[in-house]
């Protein structure tokens, strides 16, 4: 079937199989930030935005993206760069494999949650697993990032 979609604001028309998965499609179109992790909808490594909503590209059929706007980390480089600095400052990158999915989730969370508490941050990001278990470093980085944006309830301890 022929589909038309926008990937990072670039219009793409392509012929796809009915069972083509968005993750493979995006990587085939040069979006290597989208990682293949568990492929069981659990780890969040393949997270992208589809019409401004976070979705798991490993569990989304490309056919479902027909007519939609998909954003990967490649399309959010400026915002990602800023937050990436906070991750680096806290040594929270570690192997970095989960970072694209985490960064895209954090950037979306900032838009959705007003003044999130630590618990709300952890709950929102519970679908982003880190195989290095670097969660505390990530939380420190997120809190400092939010604090700089004036968007967190609690003081940084």
């Amino acid at each position, binding site marked *: 079937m022929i589909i038309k979609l926008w990937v990072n604001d670039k219009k793409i028309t392509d012929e796809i199989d009915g069972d083509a998965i968005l993750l493979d499609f995006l990587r085939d179109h040069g979006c290597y930030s989208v990682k293949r992790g568990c492929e069981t*909808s659990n780890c969040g490594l393949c997270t992208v935005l589809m019409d401004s909503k976070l979705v798991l590209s490993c569990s989304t059929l490309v056919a479902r993206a027909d007519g939609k706007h998909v954003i990967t980390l490649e399309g959010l480089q400026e915002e990602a760069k800023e937050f990436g600095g906070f991750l680096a400052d806290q040594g929270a990158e570690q192997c970095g494999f989960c970072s694209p999915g985490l960064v895209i989730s954090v950037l979306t969370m900032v838009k959705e949650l007003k003044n999130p508490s630590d618990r709300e941050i952890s709950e929102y990001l519970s679908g982003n697993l880190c195989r290095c278990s670097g969660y505390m470093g990530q939380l420190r980085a997120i809190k400092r990032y939010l604090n700089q944006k004036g968007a967190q309830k609690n003081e940084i301890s």
Partner: protein
Amino acid sequence: MITINNFVKVKTLAEAYQLNQKRTNVVIGGFMWLKMGNRKIQNAIDLSGLGLNKIEETDDEFRIGSMCTLRDLELHEGLNNECQGALKEAVYHIVGVQFRNGATVGGSIYGRYGFSDVLTCLMVLDCYVELFKGGIISLKEFAKKKYDNDILVRILIKKDSRKVSYQSQRNAKMDFPLIAVAVAKKKNNIFVAVGARPMKAKLIQKSGCLSEQNPSQEEIAEFADWAKGQFSYGSNMRASKEYREYLAYVYIKRGVKEVLKDDH
């Protein structure tokens, strides 16, 4: 591994129903659970073009399209006011935001999965399913039905101001629940649904079982003990039958206390 020959975005429910009569064709819902299976699908039936991704609120009910996501349930203010946040609590622990943005209510309910938080919670509400051919039937009745080739169109929740509590326990944050308990109270009727036993949720109802005025802790414990005995339990890798049964007792007791809270 799952393979799909054709992806069909249907234009009408009648088209979806007609396609769904063939065993090799499947309504794909959110595709989250289906994708984990091993199946060859001739036509994947996609309902996303039918406007079933909305929650409509009328004076006496909520009409939830089968393509609404679990995240839609979680964030809908009116719905969560009606059930005091119980639906939010039921879906909140399901993997993460990304997952809940994909998984659909229709998929969760049609599947009647043993592990379903959503089915367990909705069961204690005055809840109905609207089927394309089968019409409107209660969720309790639907849960008992065998799988057929009908199309689940909407979930209907009547507003009857019942008080609701939902609790579940998991071995790990993103795992399936090892027990899921929903309790509701309407006048002097108590409704209890227990899911993840690990069998699918079942509903029981009892009238006038607790004193109208301030039931004692002993009365509540006695009711919880009776209620937990109305369900069967099983063992699997998550928990033993005995552990589930004990947890059911504890959560029914807590749930009853919760729904009685503002009465006295």
